[in-house]
């Protein structure tokens, strides 16, 4: 039986056909054009190296994306080990009398103009990006993996070598910080 044309590898056309697609995929996940470019390049090389293992069960594009996913996870893992393991303190608030209760400056405020602030808005996205950039690198990474890329909890825990409860504490802290950043800079501006 002959395979459909799309399930045959033709490396000569990779750059023309898939470079932009892979680049977009990568940039949405690593937020850095240079890193994304390198990842695309590595993906093509890895593809050439393992071309003989391609069984034609999926399309060329799906196959390349699966390599790229692997590369992105490797990249995350590299940052994770560079900065030490994801640091986790189980209690979000300072210990002592205030343990587990809201500290005054962290108490959520009502948002004045929640209704009027149109959320389909370029400015909002820019502000959100700024707030995400202010997060400690670890939190931002876990937050992006979980929220933006929607990885499974289990996968993130495995890749970053953290427990699910650590993951939720990190997500909680990231979201709390983003919330107050957005409150200050967007909703109650």
């Amino acid at each position, binding site marked *: 039986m002959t395979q459909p044309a799309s399930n045959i590898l033709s490396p000569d056309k990779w*750059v023309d056909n898939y470079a932009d697609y892979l680049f*977009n995929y990568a940039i949405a996940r690593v937020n850095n054009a240079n890193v994304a470019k390198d990842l695309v390049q590595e993906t093509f090389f890895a593809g050439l190296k393992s071309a003989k293992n391609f069984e034609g069960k999926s399309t060329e594009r799906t196959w390349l994306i699966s390599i790229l996913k692997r590369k992105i996870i490797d990249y995350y893992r590299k940052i994770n080990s560079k900065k030490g393991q994801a640091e986790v303190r189980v209690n979000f608030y300072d210990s002592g009398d205030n343990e587990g209760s809201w500290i005054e400056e962290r108490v959520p405020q009502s948002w004045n103009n929640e209704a009027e602030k149109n959320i389909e808005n370029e400015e909002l996205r820019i502000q959100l990006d700024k707030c995400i950039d202010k997060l400690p690198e670890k939190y931002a990474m876990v937050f992006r993996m979980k929220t933006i890329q929607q990885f499974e909890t289990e996968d993130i825990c495995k890749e970053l070598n953290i427990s699910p409860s650590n993951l939720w504490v990190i997500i909680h802290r990231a*979201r709390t910080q983003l919330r107050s950043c957005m409150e200050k800079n967007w909703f109650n501006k």
Partner: protein
Amino acid sequence: MFKFFKITCDQATTICDKSQYGEASVYEKMQLNWHLLVCKICALYSKQNKKMSEIFNLKNGHCNKNNACLSTKDKEALKEQLNNFN
């Protein structure tokens, strides 16, 4: 019997975040809902948290629509490197 449900604001908001991803257990949701009845601050957090999720999803959609492209120059360089590799 309500002491089984008693949790701190810290735990409550963590469960609240977890439930935004649909991963809170039934027991956790019961704890959370009981807490939200008695704690107005966490109730506000919970309400605003839904809004935050909408905003994050928006960013998510934006990332997928975003059409950044590699420049022709970058592509030529890539092609050349791939050819050398062969």
